[in-house]
């Protein structure tokens, strides 16, 4: 049988991007410890509506840790304290009765707050649009087994491709860098045979686009600590290597035209 918790919540409220924001204090009572963190917020919202107050906007959709929509700072940590867990998968049994929980949106210049806990992460899409793909128009593909791929290579690509695009890495980074996100996408494609023809074009385009929006990486590793998919920091090293090489290779390719 589940226990219940009484909690104090300090939640960031902000009406619009250019409006000032502030923390508001709320108490929630009798939260079952089987509830998820977001269900706890649902309950608070129901209470707010009952009392005639405008509910809190927070991002969420799948509630299974896969869509990457959710994401808030819980007591200063992106997605909360449980490692490798998106906040939608965080459950209240990880908290104690009487706790105060501080809940804020992702904080990064590239992620403006839209309202309350909801931010705009579309800069991440711009990085993908710059080169995070293999150019293979529909109908042009060879048989799928024509190019064998060693199992380990496929597994490593899959490790990188598991990124859910939540932006916690950016939120956790003291410099608001998007290295982990970008590196994950780059390594996913750069490590596969299918990704080779565009490898250096992609590396240069994605990194340059990333740098337009996000800060620089100074190797703190906070991104990895926050990442719900535990994307490896190694990918950042691979990205840096490919990026450096891309400057040379791309120049050389251009001169061969």
């Amino acid at each position, binding site marked *: *049988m589940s226990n219940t918790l009484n909690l104090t919540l300090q939640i960031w409220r902000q*009406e619009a991007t250019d409006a000032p924001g502030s923390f508001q204090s709320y108490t929630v009572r009798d939260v*079952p*410890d*089987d*509830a*998820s963190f977001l269900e706890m917020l*649902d309950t608070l*919202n*129901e209470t707010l*509506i*009952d009392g*005639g107050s405008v*509910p809190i906007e927070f*991002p969420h*959709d*799948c*509630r*299974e840790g*896969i*869509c*990457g*929509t959710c994401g808030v700072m819980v007591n200063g940590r992106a997605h909360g304290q449980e490692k490798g867990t998106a906040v939608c*998968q965080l*459950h209240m*049994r990880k908290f104690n009765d009487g706790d105060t929980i501080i809940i804020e949106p992702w904080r990064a210049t590239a992620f403006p707050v839209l309202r*309350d806990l*909801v931010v705009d*992460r*579309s800069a*991440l899409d711009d990085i*993908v*649009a710059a*080169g*995070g*793909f*293999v150019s293979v*128009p*529909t*109908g*042009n*593909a*060879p*048989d*799928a*087994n024509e190019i*064998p*791929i*060693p*199992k380990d290579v*496929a597994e490593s*690509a*899959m490790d990188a*491709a*598991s990124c*859910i*695009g939540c932006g916690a890495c950016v939120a956790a980074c003291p410099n608001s860098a998007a290295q982990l996100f970008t590196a994950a996408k780059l390594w*996913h*494609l750069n490590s596969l045979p*299918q990704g080779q023809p565009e490898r250096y074009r992609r590396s240069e385009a994605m990194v340059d686009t990333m740098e337009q929006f996000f800060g620089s990486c100074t190797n703190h590793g906070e991104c990895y600590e926050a990442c719900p998919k535990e994307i490896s920091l190694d990918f950042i090293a691979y990205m840096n290597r490919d990026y450096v090489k891309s400057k040379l290779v791309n120049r050389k390719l251009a001169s061969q035209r």
Partner: protein
Amino acid sequence: MQETTEDASALRGSSLNGSSLNSQVPDGPMADKWENHKFNIKLVNPSNKRKFKVLIVGTGLAGASAAASLAELGYEVEAFTFHDTPRRAHSIAAQGGINAAKNYPNDGDSVHRLFYDTVKGGDFRSREANVHRLAQVSVDIIDQMTAQGVPFAREYGGLLANRSFGGAQVSRTFYARGQTGQQLLLGAYQQMMRQVGLGKVKLHTRMEMLDLVTKDGEACGIVCRNLVTGEVTSHSGHAVVLATGGYGNVFYLSTNAMACNVTAAWRAHRKGAFFANPCYTQIHPTCIPASDEFQSKLTLMSESLRNDGRIWVPRNPDETRAAADISERDRYYYLEEKYPSFGNLVPRDVASRNAKTVVDKGLGVGPLKNGVYLDFADAIKRDGKATIEAKYGNLFQMYERITGEDPYARPMRIYPATHYTMGGLWVDYNLMTTVPGLYACGEANFSDHGANRLGASALMQGLADGYFVLPYTIGDSLAPKLGTEPVPTSDPVFQSSEQGVRDRISRLMSIGGTKSPDYFHRELGKLVWNYIGMERTEAGLEKAITEIQALNEEFWRDLRVLGDTDTINSSIENAGRVADFFELAELMARDALDRAESCGGHFRVESQTEDGEALRDDEDFSHVSAWEWQGEDTIQVKHAEELAFEEVPLSQRSYK
């Protein structure tokens, strides 16, 4: 056979006076239909494609693949999603895999076998020609996705791995760990983002379509609300494609993401698109049971778990011992006992209904007695913990995170939950709805899965529609429009549609009642689950209609939506979606009432075999029921599309 008698229609509470529908299935032998059709339909010449603008609503597997492919062909494409980025579409959550008739494992698969299995699995309620085409193009999907860099699972030799899924007799399922939907969606998303980067697709995120606009009976555009600013805008094109997903959230609790809804399809339905087989919904047998009233959604545990887990309940309803302490003699392995040859691997609908039966008898397990055990103790004893962990580690971890229970030490608790909707907008062979110029792809249409979908076939269908069907068939309706401009958004049809959208929002905002949209959604969900869930009876369905109407009336009287309309306001978004769910739920009940047979996921208690299995009535119901909107206070009219089974002989399913 179409229902015509007045008595029959009065009895079933529906008006059955509609005409029959033409599916535009091409002539010729089944295996040649698609090739012949591609040759015979009208084409748009490459240099003319840029003169056509196509609006695509929804950027999940179906929408993103369609947007990318049409843009590559040269069409001018605008894509709309209410998500903040296309990569969040609900397709992302699919776990198990995607089918294709590649026959890589050399175990006897073929286009014909996949076609056959899908028609039979759909309990003979799908259109043969569509299913055959789906099986044909399935092989191209795997090639396409692999070339895009989808990291499918591989064998040590470097070739693609396959597994058998959902009791299939061949291994035709491709997968990427337990994240196949994620990887496929990212593939389609990347392909579309490339076109966005090239300026060939104009992407509108956080934009919700709230109306379809038609002129002279043809689709000419949509009206959307910007979910950040609240602005209501018109968008016009030569054709509109809806790839807006399924309506499983009408049950409130389901495995669907929170935002999934029927609004786009329903708004199109109100503008003339027939809605087919709304009562065909799929209840997935292996989900984590609800823990309390505040539960917001249910989580699917992959079907693959049934390959090694044994399903049982205690024989004694008053059992108090922990699972491990209950002796073999006191355990009821109901699937293994009832279905000796298929055992725990019976199809989804059969597994689900049997779970309901034992729980209804009071044999359920867990604090709320609302689940059954899925037990890995024997598998762990047989294969060792390490093997089970390698196979299902991710799933076990997810289970533990949600329930706080360790499934290595005690059995999982599972219960069925709504998962997928086979019903949807009626489309012809070209994927065009009954509104000329309006197409529907993916889960949003009704096609291909009949009354029951086989595992790993929805991803296949979404990508088939978007990559390999629509890009050809859309030309047929566009070609004759060469030289015409899209209807300008200043046209009165757009103005009045925009006004309608604004008025509806104002109406929802101004009710000033006491209860939240979520409250009504939850209550509606209970009605739908209880009366239009795993078992349906005539009396229950009639009651459902009355109760849904009463709750709907209360909704429009006592709804409370707070906040403003010119900002992010999820209450107003939900309110509109719930309002549409009410109308859909009523139609689901009418459709279920009208279909006085059992088939696939639709189980009418009055129509069962002596053993309690689903009993089809091919004489009276071998048709698609497509419902036509008649206005708010009038019962919808049913049109029938007769189904003929020429290639796959009709037979009753049996899993004994």
